[in-house]
């Protein structure tokens, strides 16, 4: 059993699916000869050839549109956004064309659009974004956002096999920071739509995803020393949300703290709050609270970025307040 990084887990998942199914191909900017800006597809063009690992022009709308056309004909394209920030250039193609295709015209469009997202890396406003809220509002898309090596691998494989379009968000802060023992030869398929209990607790539930899973676990460790028992739920899939897992943890601890790295207004925490309110209002022993980024574009300077993004201490502070409510 080898210890591998988050990035290697993703890479293994991609490679296994390309070896298993010759309908799978990759297209994106610098994914071929260079192996991708973060080297996710390093060696792929050599292994699978130029026809299956395609270097494209800088044209996100064409990348996603071409992927959709190929998918209609039975292919399984995986489109890389070099940084997920550039997915906004394909927003029309994803929300109007791809997401509606099955519903409006019965067109199967099994594509995966993946790319590095997230901050804490001094990337500035255009190399740090979390785009989930912009697409969460679009029926027809699925969104997955792994936080562990196992799920990085298991969710890319499930996303490629899914019959519908999936956005696969990979946090670049996790790429080489997170490591895990993954048994070789094990077929890992993380189910889409299913959350993961990252830590059991009794006093409050921290509901989160992506990089802030790790910050929440760190916070839970600190809270434990103060005698506060925090449960941490890693959503893993954002669309569709695992309502049952969210409601179950809230009914267990009776308090909900939602944590995400994305900005506050219009972020996913608002929707999760509404669902808890509709389905578990009488189980609550305190207000549903949010720890999120501030409502500003993400700035570059370390002092500014650290201030804007949610940190472990923020989670501890909010959890402490909620636990004592």
């Amino acid at each position, binding site marked *: 059993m080898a210890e591998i990084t988050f990035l290697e887990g993703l890479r293994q998942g991609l490679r296994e699916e390309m070896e298993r199914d010759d309908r799978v*191909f990759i297209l994106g900017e610098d994914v071929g000869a260079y192996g991708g800006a973060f080297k996710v597809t390093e060696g792929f063009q050599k292994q699978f050839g130029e*026809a*299956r690992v*395609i270097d*494209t*022009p800088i*044209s996100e*709308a*064409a*990348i*996603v*549109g*071409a*992927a*959709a*056309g*190929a*998918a*209609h*004909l*039975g*292919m399984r*394209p995986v489109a890389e956004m070099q940084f997920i920030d550039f997915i906004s250039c394909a927003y*029309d*193609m994803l929300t*109007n*064309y791809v997401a*509606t295709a*099955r*519903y*409006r*015209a*019965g*067109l*199967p469009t099994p594509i995966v659009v993946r790319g590095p997202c997230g901050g804490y890396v001094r990337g500035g406003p255009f190399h740090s974004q979390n785009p989930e809220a912009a697409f969460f509002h679009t*029926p*027809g898309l*699925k969104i997955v956002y792994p936080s562990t090596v196992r799920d990085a691998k298991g969710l890319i494989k499930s996303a490629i096999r*899914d*019959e*519908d379009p999936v956005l696969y968000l990979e946090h670049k802060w996790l790429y080489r920071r997170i490591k895990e023992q993954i048994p070789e030869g094990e077929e890992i398929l993380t189910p889409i739509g299913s959350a993961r209990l990252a830590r059991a607790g009794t006093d409050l539930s921290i509901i989160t995803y992506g990089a802030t899973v790790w910050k929440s676990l760190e916070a839970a460790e600190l809270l434990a020393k103060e005698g506060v028992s925090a449960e941490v739920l890693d959503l893993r899939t954002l669309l*569709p949300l695992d309502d049952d897992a969210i409601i179950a943890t809230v009914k267990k601890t009776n308090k909900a703290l939602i944590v995400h790295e994305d900005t506050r207004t219009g972020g996913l925490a608002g929707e999760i709050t509404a669902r808890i309110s509709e389905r578990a209002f009488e189980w609550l022993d305190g207000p549903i609270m949010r720890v999120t980024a501030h409502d500003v574009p993400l700035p570059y300077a370390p002092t500014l970025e650290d201030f804007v993004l949610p940190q472990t201490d923020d989670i501890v502070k909010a959890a402490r307040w909620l636990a004592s409510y």
Partner: protein
Amino acid sequence: MPGSTSVSKSPPIPAGLSRDQLLEIYRFLRLTRVLEERLTALYKQSKVIGGLFRSLGQEGESVASAYALERGRHRDFLSPLIRNLGSLLVMGARPVQILRQYMAKDQSPTRGRELNVHFGDLELGYLGQISHLGDMVPVMAGVTLTFKMRREPRVGLVYIGDGATSTGAFHEGLNFAAVQRCPLVVIGEYNGYAYSTTPDRQFAVTNLADKAKGYGIPAVTVDGNDVLAVYEATKYAVDRARMGKGVHFVEVKTFRRKGHAEHDDQHYVPKEDLERWAKNDPIDRYRRQLVETGWAEARDLEDIDGDVRDEIDQATDACVGEPLPPPESALAGVYAHPAAAERLWFRSASG
């Protein structure tokens, strides 16, 4: 025929087509026009639910370009726009499907979810557009990239209007397809108006073909109201694409003789232009051509006209009384899994 010793008085077969094919083209032209005239009547009776888009004056280029493809199950593939009803009929769409689409019937190809010609058939090889113009160019780049990857000798054809050549998607898709040498033929329809906007407010080149040349794509401009000229130019492009020589652009110069949609009185169009182009009607021209060259007698064409009227009457009768889709059917089919969206508790049963 050239080199023939036959004493037949018939002129050379135009564009390499047989007499049956020439008459079939005529039939598709008439079918397009009569179907649209029927839709206009249904629109005035409020049986067409949404807007009605006419291709009056453009039937020739739509039919002739599509006719240059190989048709049938899993053969060539095209993506029509709102004024390419004729191309859909050529590919095998049936008039009853179009009527049902416009009237939002449950039995329509999209079960009442989408409008007009926004529907497709992956087997017969046509893909419905969405309203975001330009988007079908990248999508058809992907379709034809797949033909190339699978080494299938198939060709794709996509239409783009003069106005939509201003979109980013058009440029991204055209460039992508050119770089990948996709077997794609692009028909650029210069019809004088994008809603109310004229080409001189849309771009600073004279011909759409000039734009294609900027991407290293061979391009030709033809008289869009000359049916056989459009056919020949498209056939050349299709053959070339099938041989692996990449994208080809065919610009057809034509004229939109109705408003953007039926509600639009096109007051912004000079009357003399409408009169001039009415005299240049592609179907009238083609009909004259067939009769003058002796390939058809007026009687043959009148028979076809009668058959087409009967076909449209029967198609209308078959579907005009059909029900709209049941309200609850709106929830199904957003995803393969789950099969239906959640029904909200406050929505009562059956509308």
